[in-house]
Every structure is written in C-alpha cells, then in structure tokens.
C-alpha cells in the first residue's frame, strides 16, 4: 500500500539532459519559468510548450510520466481558470444576471492554465533527470555565495540530503509497524475521526522512537568518519560545466529572446 508512493521520482538515463551539470539544470529550469511568465500571448506559450516537448524527447523520459506529474495540479488549473474567466473585466462576450464572461478573461484563463501546466511539467523534468543527491549537491554549490552572509548552506543541504535519503526507509518502517500492530488486532479502518486518530498512536510512537534512534546512530557513524561540517570538505564528484551546459544555456537564452520578440 505505502510502497506504491513514489518520492524522488528520478528516472535513470543517459541522455543529454541527464548528463548536464545539475547546477545548469536548475538554472535552466529557472530560466524556463521566467520565460513562461514573460510570455504575454498564446504564441509565446506555444513556444514554451514546443520547447518542453523537445526537452522531454531529448531526455527519453516517457510522456506518460508527464501526465502523471500533471494530475495533481488539475484542480488548481481549473480553479484559476474559473477565477480568470469570471473576474477579469473587459469586452463582454456573455452575460447572465451578474456574471460576465469577457474575451480578456478567457484569454487570460487559457494563458494561465498552460503556464501552470508547463511550469509543473518543466520542473518535473528537473527531478526526473536528476537524482536527489545531485540536486542537493547543486543547490549547495549554487547557494555558496550566501555563505558570506553566514547562511549555513552546507548544513542545510546536508539536512536535505539526509531527509531525502531516509524517506524510503521510513516508508518501509511505517509499513512494518502497521503490519505488526494489525497482527495484534489494531483496527485502523473503522470508527470515527477520534477513533482513527487514536489508532495512529501505536504507529506514530514506535516510528518516532526509531527515527530518533536512527538519527542517533547516523550522527555517531558520521562522527566516526570524522565529519565536521562542510569546512575543507572535498568531493568525490566535482561538478564541472561542459559544452552541454553552455549549449543548454544558449538555448534557454534564445528561447527568452524569442518569447520577448513574440510579445511585441
């Protein structure tokens, strides 16, 4: 049951996009989002969709993964479209009582919907093609300048790495504890809200206890290997920009220019 949840949706591969430097992937994703918001008309959004399809083709991530990632945002899309259709003023097309539907409203609704869909699909591509470890590593490097402002960048990214690492472990553990309590006759499927909340106690307490134990053990293991924070720490995998990254950056910059031209 719990095993079906996929977190860390990394989709292993050897494509151009997989091989890009994760830092540039993050930058490109940000540029793509900027581009989507710069696009002021349908032509611009079409360019965005086209670029997205191209990227997915290049990455080798199957298209049904895209629909999977878009499913949860559909309610949000519908909600914003409805808001836009009914509440934007302009040239009135239809009118019932006090509700007005305007041409500008419809336009904006379409624009916003595609913007959100592209945004989600575009950032999903980042997580599909980048393993969580690469991702946190890249975030740490990108945020490095903030160290001068005394932001604990290394610590934050280490926390993120550890959190990501332990999600599957915790899921497995939860599954095990649920089964163990079920075997002792715990009833989690029936009863009112209060009863169900109470039924969670036998699961949450062992889960908390074991998380603390695990944290303790992990801290000990890290100290045994002389972990002392990020200062002077070197890496096995040095991030390095290659020609791929510069191509990607050029493409993204080009796309932004195209969108700006289409706006005129």
């Amino acid at each position, binding site marked *: 049951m719990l095993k079906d949840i996929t977190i860390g949706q990394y989709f292993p591969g050897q494509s151009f996009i997989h091989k890009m430097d994760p830092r540039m992937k993050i930058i490109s994703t940000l540029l793509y989002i900027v581009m989507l918001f710069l696009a002021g008309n349908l032509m611009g959004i079409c360019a965005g969709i086209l670029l997205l399809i191209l990227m997915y083709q290049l990455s080798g991530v199957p298209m049904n993964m895209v629909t999977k990632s878009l499913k949860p945002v559909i309610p949000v899309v519908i909600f914003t479209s409805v808001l836009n259709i009914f509440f934007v003023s302009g040239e009135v097309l239809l009118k019932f009582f006090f509700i007005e539907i305007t041409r500008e409203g419809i336009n904006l609704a379409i624009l916003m919907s595609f913007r959100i869909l592209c945004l989600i699909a575009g950032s999903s591509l980042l997580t599909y093609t980048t393993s969580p470890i690469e991702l946190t590593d890249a975030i740490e490097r990108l945020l490095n300048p903030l160290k001068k402002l005394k932001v604990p960048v290394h610590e934050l990214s280490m926390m993120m790495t550890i959190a990501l690492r332990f999600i599957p472990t915790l899921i497995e553990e939860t599954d095990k504890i649920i089964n*163990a*309590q079920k075997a002792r*006759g715990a009833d989690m499927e029936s009863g009112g809200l209060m009863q169900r909340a109470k039924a969670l106690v036998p699961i949450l307490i062992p889960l908390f206890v074991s998380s603390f134990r695990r944290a303790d053990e992990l801290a000990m293991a890290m100290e045994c290997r002389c972990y002392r924070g990020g200062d002077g720490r070197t890496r096995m995998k040095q991030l390095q920009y290659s020609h791929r990254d510069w191509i990607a950056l050029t493409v993204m910059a080009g796309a932004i220019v195209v969108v700006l031209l289409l706006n005129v």
Partner: protein
Amino acid sequence: MAVIKTENLSHVYSEGTPFVKTAIENINIEIEEGQMVGVIGHTGSGKSTLIQHFNGLLQPTSGKIYIDGEDMWADKNKLRDIRFKVGLVFQYPEYQLFEETCYKDIAFGPKNMGLPDDEIDKRVREAAAFVNLSEEQLMKSPFELSGGQKRRVAIAGVLAMKPKVLILDEPTAGLDPKGRDRILGQIKEYHQEEKNTVLIVSHSMEDVAKFAQKVLVMNRSKVFLYDTVEAVFAHAKEISEIGLAVPQITQIFAELKKRGYDVNPDVYTIEAAKAELIRLLEEGGNISA
C-alpha cells in the same frame, strides 16, 4: 485436520509495473495442529511473505488459504478474528512497543480482542511469566529495558492473545547465544503447555533441529522440502546444494559414517550425538570397514 492449508498459493509484488517480483509460487502445504514447524530458507526465498499470508496481512495474488478448514478471504469481516487465531511476531518485534508500561503494551492485543478486564489481567501476567518478566519490569516503560528484554515483552504481547497458531519470524535475530536459547526455550515451554501450533522462521539449522518436528525448506519462492526433521536432513546433499547447511553435528556424523564408523548419520542434536557416541564406544568402537 490441518490447521493451516494452502492451495496453489502465489503472491506477486508490484504486479503490472517494471518492478514486478514473484515472492511465492504455487505453495501447497498443510500444517497439522499442535506441531512445531521450522521454516528455513535464504533471504528473499519467500519465508516472510508466506507467513504474512497465514494471518491475512497479505492477500494472495492467486490460490487459497484455509484456516481450520475455512477459506480465509471468503469473508473479509472475519479477517480480524483470524489475526487473533494466528498470532504473528515480526522480525525485531521490539520496535513495535509503544505504551507507557510493558503491562499496557502486552495488554494491547487482548484489549483489541474485547476481553473483560480480569481476563486481560490474567493473560498479561501469564504471558509475562512465560517470558520471565518480573512484576517490577512489567510496570516499567518498555524503553527502559535492554534489547533482549524488550523483545521478550513484544513476544509476550502476542502470547497474551493465546493464538491457536503462533508464528515467529526470526525471533532470535541479533541476540547472543544465551538470549537465543532463552527465547527458544520459552517458546518451546509455551508450546508444550498450550499444545498450540508453532511456526518459527529461522536461519539456523541447529535451532530448527533442536525444537521442530517438521521443517519447511523454502528456495526461490517455492517449497523445496516439507517433511519431518529426519526426512529433511536425510536430504543433506540437496540442502547444501541450495546453499543451506545441515547442522554441524549432522555433517560430522555423515563424515564419520563415510570413514567407516558404524554410526547412525541421522543425528541432529548434541544430545542425540552424545547418546550415539556412547553407544558406539560401548560396542567397542569397531570400525566396520
């Protein structure tokens, strides 16, 4: 009558995804009432999957399971009753403890059964006595106890439900030899007193030889052998071929026989070995060859 019976039982994990894995395949076994059965196999051979079917935690992909002759999945509302009938102690059960005191934790199962308070109290004390927990320890928080003690509390939590069939998944994993013998001894004592059916999953042939009447050997999702201890260990060669070892003492006796000593190679425990050696010496230790 068989207390547990399976018919072509199969279970496939993550069916319809790229991660599809057959955990057990076409299992047909009957477990007689009142027996102590050892379940042996490699990691990933399907032992844990199989025993989770016996109390309805996993639903078979295909095939049927009968408990006391009743089809387990015929009426889903009865599943909970089956879980009280077939008690399952998981691997590392100490991680499931959650109550403020050991007493309350052991009482969790009986309480879920809806028993009256005085019956719960009686059962908790009985179960605690079986696993040698003192009155003082019963009132302590389970988190104050040592690893071995915690495990005994967790086992008592299932014993207190007085299941007709008791299944333990590697109850001795991670314990020292003393703790191991202690827990196995207590389980055996419980079995003799309650006359219930006990299944123990184990890695150790020595342990299985010591307590079980029948052995179920699993290999690659299938039943490899299921027979009495003597009959199973008579297949020493096949067992070592799938990478499991018969008890060391059996290996020694097989070797003795090979070198021409007139011994019975069907020896699985130290006690039996001792008796056999004494017999041999009394007969003059003849080398028959």
